């Protein structure tokens, strides 16, 4: 096994008396797509927030390629290659679609402090942003404010922002939530492409069983903030404990 690109050690967060994520220890490796499943309120998104830095851990640690990043800000973690897309669309609403993407591109390129050249003359940034726009099939929306996009396109832009960060660790939080059936394949295709790169680590929170089956190399199950099961998809889905807490209803629906 190669050394993990991302690890959490006894990662815990408490809100008052409530333990939302409880001592989760887990390693993630390059070239591996891990799907995190669990019922609502299991702590999946909170676990993501602890990894990408939106929330501060009460105990335990997060390591990126062996470096302890538990105390770092979200921007510092992004700079170390941890990229995150959000469950609820989280864009720059009044800025154009192209500007949204360019922001991610220029953050990656370290051009955020460039203040004397007009952005439109930075062809490197613009071309790179247009490349990611095309990949997300949003080219014809480039000039529209993000807020005016239909929901499905906003979800695509959300994913495209993550793509444009070109991180080592891709974290998707229900990337196809609320998308129509004809739009979801575009986003899933993007994720499949990243998955094919053996240097990238993918973490995915997802409910839809067909998506889980298509993408997962490994499944971990969270329940009440605890790591309940961890293993190959077939193995985890068959285990009795998982069926009891979560998959019982889900498998019936998709069967």
């Amino acid at each position, binding site marked *: 096994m190669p050394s993990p690109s991302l690890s959490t050690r006894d990662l815990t967060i408490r809100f008052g008396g409530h333990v939302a994520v409880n001592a989760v220890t887990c390693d993630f490796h390059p070239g591996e797509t891990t799907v995190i499943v669990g019922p609502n309120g299991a702590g999946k998104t909170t676990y993501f927030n602890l990894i990408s830095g939106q929330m501060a851990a009460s105990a335990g640690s997060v390591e990126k390629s062996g470096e302890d990043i538990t105390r770092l*800000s979200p*921007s510092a973690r992004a700079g170390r290659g941890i990229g995150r897309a*959000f469950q609820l669309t989280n864009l720059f609403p009044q*800025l154009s679609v192209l500007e949204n993407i360019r922001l991610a591109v220029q953050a990656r390129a370290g051009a955020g402090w460039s203040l004397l050249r007009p*952005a439109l003359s930075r062809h490197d940034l613009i071309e790179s942003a247009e490349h990611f726009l095309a990949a997300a099939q949003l080219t014809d929306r480039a000039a529209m404010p993000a807020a005016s996009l239909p929901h499905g396109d906003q979800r695509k832009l959300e994913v495209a922002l993550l793509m444009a960060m070109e991180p080592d660790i891709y974290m998707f939080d229900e990337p196809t939530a609320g998308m129509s059936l004809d739009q979801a394949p575009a986003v899933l295709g993007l994720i499949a492409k990243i998955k094919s790169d053996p240097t990238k680590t993918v973490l995915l929170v997802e409910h839809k069983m067909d998506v889980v089956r298509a993408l997962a190399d490994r499944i971990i199950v969270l329940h009440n903030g605890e790591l309940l099961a961890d293993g190959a998809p077939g193995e985890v889905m068959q285990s009795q404990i998982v069926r009891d807490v979560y998959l019982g209803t889900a498998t019936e629906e998709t069967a």
Partner: protein
Amino acid sequence: MKPTYGTIAVKSAMLVIAALLLFAPFLFQDIRALEVAARICIFIVLVASYDLLIGYTGIVSFAHTMFFGFGAYGSAIALKQMGPGWESVALGTLAGVALSLIVATAIGLISLRVKAIFFAMITLAAASVVLVLASQLSQITGGEDGITYRTPDLFKTATKLAVDEDGKVLRWFGVKLNGKLAAYYFVFVTSLVLFLVMLRITVSPLGTVLKAIRENEARAEAIGYRVVAYRTFVFCLSAVVASLAGSVYAVWLKYTGPDTALSFAIMIDILLMVVIGGMGTMWGAVIGASLMVMAQYYLRDLMGAASEATAALPLLPELLAPDRWLFWLGIIFILLVYFFPRGIAGTLMARGQRA
């Protein structure tokens, strides 16, 4: 993208205002008009630098006149203490900029992490302290009376920039080429340069980051921007520009006091200008500052004339009496906000987009 009618209208207004300011000494040959033109130049810079904070980045500060005052008092004290030389202007300006940078960095690092409302309160507190200090340290600042001083000889009204064969000051199109003219173009050129630098910054990659912080601070942080660092930077930048504008205004006025450089009345003027013109667009600063300064200087005259013209009618002359100019300014302000909710420039440009 195809320019819209609203954008064309705003840009044409920019050209007209720029041309009027450029040729102001030749177009309006009286001393009061030149005062107005110089004040418009200075306030365009002051309002634009404030818009970098409130309109572009979404930071609400009430300390903008404090930085303006640092610059103005810096120049004024140096000119008073060291005499009317260029080295006094340079040293005073630098001192103002340095003080602004130190105070802005301190306020920024201490408090830009906290919620917007607390930050606004902290800036208000800092500005109040400085206002009290300026009036108490009267042996340095002149207290409530302010400071009068002489400026470099080039700007004396008696200075002849060019003479004819009789040794009299040369005239161009009837305008004396004297020190007053030099002083006006000193104000105009420095204001233009400062404005263009800010304009350049707003269209740079950094300008987009500022807007991103305004739109969605958490996401800006999540894609890798250190929001606190950017906020502190833009707070310092706007403080430095305000300070420079203050220094230039002090040289122009040859007087600096709380009413011209430090009072909260100026802060309110800046807020009104930025709201009237439109936040988040540099053009808004130009429109807001021009209209507001014009109204402050000419609304009374206009109303005096209107009052006399309607003298025969009942009630109207009373309503239009020049003393009621603030009342009418208030009404105009309310109407502007009602019909141009995003400011004149902002609303016009947005309206064009839909069409």
